[in-house]
């Protein structure tokens, strides 16, 4: 196990032990800096990732356990047919404030359809969705305006909340930074890479501070670092009391999720 792997396992151990996201990030960064300056085998310098994570928990404690709040999203008996094909049959999901729900399942099992129904973009053939509070929706792609700069996107979203230009711009850049993206360059959206455009998309969906945040595979084009940043950000939003629904086909983050809806068996 090289230093990078050790740090990755160590970070995962801290998360598993529910160390607060920002505290964990600092501890990992400090260990990385130490290894870079002093060299040395992380196993000798820090011990096993598990044991060191346990020591850190003793030193700084863990984040308060999430107390799920009131129900924010309640979807019941959702059925959707396209022609003769039943895409969803009697799917149900309840998400409370302070929870992350993952909607998983094979390609074509209706994950995106389910999310679009939750967002109110399409109607189910049967069933009911109740949302309490403000809703944010981040589609798989699109949602950005080709000829506008990131700042102009932020101003646009801000205007919807009654923010003037400068506060809106600052809020946008700060939210982008949470995803590891410095959004200060004057590049129109059409010239951003796919991953960065997706970060813009995500940033906008969090800017309105929605009570319920619906994300449809929000990591298209992300590298590993951006992917980790995304999950850190989701956990942070969860701990602020948002209700989050993530459509995903990647299962390796399920340990950081509170509710799982597997749609593989729900249809047909």
């Amino acid at each position: 196990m090289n230093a990078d792997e050790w740090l990755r396992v160590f970070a995962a151990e801290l998360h598993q032990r529910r160390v607060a996201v920002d505290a964990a990030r600092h501890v990992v960064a400090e260990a990385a800096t130490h290894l870079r300056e002093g060299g040395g085998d992380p196993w000798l310098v820090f011990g096993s990732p598990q044991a060191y994570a346990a020591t850190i928990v003793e030193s700084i404690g863990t984040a308060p356990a999430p107390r799920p709040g009131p129900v924010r999203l309640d979807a019941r008996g959702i059925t959707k047919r396209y022609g003769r094909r039943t895409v969803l049959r009697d799917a149900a999901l309840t998400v409370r404030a302070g929870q992350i729900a993952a909607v998983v399942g094979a390609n074509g099992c209706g994950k995106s359809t389910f999310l679009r129904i939750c967002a109110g973009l399409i109607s189910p053939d049967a069933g009911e969705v109740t949302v309490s509070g403000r809703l944010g929706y981040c589609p798989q792609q699109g949602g950005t305006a080709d000829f506008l700069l990131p700042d102009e996107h932020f101003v646009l979203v801000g205007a919807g909340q009654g923010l003037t230009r400068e506060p809106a711009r600052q809020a946008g850049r700060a939210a982008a930074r949470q995803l590891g993206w410095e959004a200060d360059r004057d590049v129109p959206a059409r010239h951003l890479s796919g991953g960065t455009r997706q970060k813009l998309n995500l940033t906008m969906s969090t800017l309105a501070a929605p009570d319920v945040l619906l994300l449809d595979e929000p990591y298209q084009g992300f590298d590993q670092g951006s992917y980790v940043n995304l999950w850190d950000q989701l956990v942070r939003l969860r701990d602020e009391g948002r209700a989050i629904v993530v459509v995903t086909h990647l299962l390796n983050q399920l340990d950081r999720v509170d509710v799982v809806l597997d749609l593989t068996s729900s249809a047909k």
Partner: protein
Amino acid sequence: MDPDRRGQWLRGVLDLCVLALLRDGESYGYQLAQALDTAGVGPIQGGTLYPVLLRLQRTGLVTAQWREGDSGPARKYYQLTAEGRAALRQGGNAWLAFVAPVTDIVTKGVDG
């Protein structure tokens, strides 16, 4: 030296050593470890040092700040707070009051 014994001693005074090293100015983990080694305390591994720093930070005896160094990567710099200074004075005096008689007794034993 018997590493177990050295480890036990260190556990009792590493926080005081760190506070003392920060008395005249801020420092970061790796530099503190080097300073301790240079002073003759011996090598201090990161796994021993950083939990102590985190505890000092949590209890408000030091504050910390990430900053780019003059050269090299961003580092977490630690500074002594007023409470840290007071704890250093109090704990340092208690330590000196403790080791003086111990040294006395042990010296007699070793010399005799």
